[in-house]
């Protein structure tokens, strides 16, 4: 069988073998409910505490500031609801036009349910219009929610700088750092960030576990209402095995952060340069100066993303077009549209996202195999012909 070259780590990642090993005991003998009174449960609650410490450490937070959740989407929803429910008199929300659907769709829902929402625009490279943001910050703003790094382009917003400004106005600041955690060094305690979302399956833990950082002293109202778990911040029996996994994954990510920003980054750059050199009418989307080390988003003009993906799949290369979460829709991605990427290019965009598991051989394989695919698809395209002719 053909080996798979997995370049879709912004969609989801493989569970690290060390992570699987760490969680397995909690799927076997140590199945107790951490809230229970007996010895068997004690070991489980100790494991939860350790995971909380590990997860806090990668952010530069304290363990009590970590609330475990079921995914990045829940963390995002919980943060925004907590902010607005804790500030019931304020009716204004600020976010950007390029957020993940977890923030975007919730903000759109709220905009039809009594809230005024400002969607801050970005420029052609995906950089946030800071003046626009600050101009719209007001007494009435309950929360500013901005992603740390974009899942489609990898472009990073200067959230630490923005958080300082927002904090000065006494407004709650939340960041969706689902793509940034583990790739960007963080010392959250020293920033003005009040809440931060992360998701396990983006850093080699399993799907279905996440966390929300809630700064000590930040007013909070639980999103999932139920039992006393997570210090009354999130009801529901704890997903013990996956929380242990997240803790371990956070520890590993901390250890591998340097490699991510050197070797993985170099592989990404090699891939990007290699493709651009071999394929005409191909362009990188987003600000290459301020970008995650593992991501490149390339538009192949005059052809369509899904076809590229399926042709790549035939030769064992996994990547994505638009964001995986929205690939059920036929629209070009809202991120690229917000950036004003022309339709000819937006439709043919492909995101390659690497991880520490990728090798140079894999990258060279893609650099060799991708250009003929693009060429073949272009031969079928009516638009390509006219470019060639023109």
């Amino acid at each position: 069988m053909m080996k798979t070259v997995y370049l879709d780590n912004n969609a989801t990642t493989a569970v690290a073998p060390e992570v699987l090993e760490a969680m397995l005991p909690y799927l076997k003998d140590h199945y107790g409910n951490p809230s229970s009174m007996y010895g068997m449960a004690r070991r489980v609650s100790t494991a939860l505490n350790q995971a909380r410490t590990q997860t806090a450490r990668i952010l530069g937070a304290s363990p009590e500031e970590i609330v475990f959740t079921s995914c990045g989407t829940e963390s995002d929803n919980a943060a925004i609801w907590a902010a607005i429910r804790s500030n019931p008199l304020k009716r204004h929300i600020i976010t950007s036009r390029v957020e993940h659907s977890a923030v975007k769709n919730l903000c759109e829902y709220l905009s039809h349910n009594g809230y005024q929402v400002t969607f801050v625009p970005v420029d052609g490279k995906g950089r946030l219009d800071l003046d626009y943001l600050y101009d719209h910050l007001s007494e009435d703003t309950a929360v500013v929610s901005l992603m740390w790094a974009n899942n489609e382009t990898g472009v990073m917003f200067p959230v630490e700088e923005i958080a300082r400004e927002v904090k000065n106005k006494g407004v709650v600041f939340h960041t969706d750092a689902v793509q940034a955690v583990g790739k960007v060094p963080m010392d959250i305690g020293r920033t003005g960030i009040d809440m931060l979302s992360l998701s396990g399956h983006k850093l080699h833990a399993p799907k279905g576990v996440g966390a929300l950082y809630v700064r000590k002293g930040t007013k909070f109202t639980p999103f999932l209402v139920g039992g006393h778990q997570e210090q009354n911040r999130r009801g529901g029996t704890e997903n013990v095995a996956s929380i242990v996994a997240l803790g371990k994954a956070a520890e590993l990510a901390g250890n591998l952060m340097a490699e991510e920003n050197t070797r993985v980054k170099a592989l990404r750059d090699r891939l990007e340069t290699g493709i651009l050199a071999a394929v005409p009418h191909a362009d990188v989307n987003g600000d290459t100066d301020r970008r995650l080390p593992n991501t490149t988003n390339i538009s192949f003009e005059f052809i369509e993303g899904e076809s590229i993906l399926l042709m790549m799949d035939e030769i064992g290369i996994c990547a994505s077009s638009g964001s995986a979460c929205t690939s059920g829709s036929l629209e070009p991605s809202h991120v690229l549209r917000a950036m004003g990427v022309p339709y000819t290019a937006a439709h043919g965009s492909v995101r390659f996202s690497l991880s520490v598991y990728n090798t140079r051989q894999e990258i060279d394989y893609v650099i060799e195999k991708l250009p003929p695919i693009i060429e073949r698809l272009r031969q079928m395209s009516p638009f390509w012909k006219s470019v060639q002719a023109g």
Partner: protein
Amino acid sequence: MWEYSDKVKEHFLNPRNVGVIEDADGVGEVGSISCGDALKLTFKVDENERIVDVKFQTFGCASAIASSSALTEMLKGKTIEEAEKITNDDIANYLGGLPKEKMHCSVMGQEALEKAIACYRGKPLSEKEGEIVCECFGVTDVEIRRALTEHR
């Protein structure tokens, strides 16, 4: 994720009749790049109005490419009169079905064919009944309603 039949995959990976016939008897173009789908269909007929050659170019997803390829295969050897009867359902059936989200990709084939035949007959498509709802395809509300009833 979209579930494609083996036949769709096969036509996508090995599309038949890609290209443009330079001195075509019929030419039909639908869609636009802003829509994310476009198709150009060209054919040649013999003296008995039988289609002897047909080629396509498609900008679109796998099912658009497969639908176009399938359509050209279906068209070869048919008379114009027979060709006229081909619907998008026929195309989808020929391919062993399409995911419901992707049915519109086969509609594009039918539309391009209609246009190409109209072009062959030397008359522009008659003014359509109803209001144009989708600019890219020139789809009218009447057509949408018809499509809906046909698919019940």
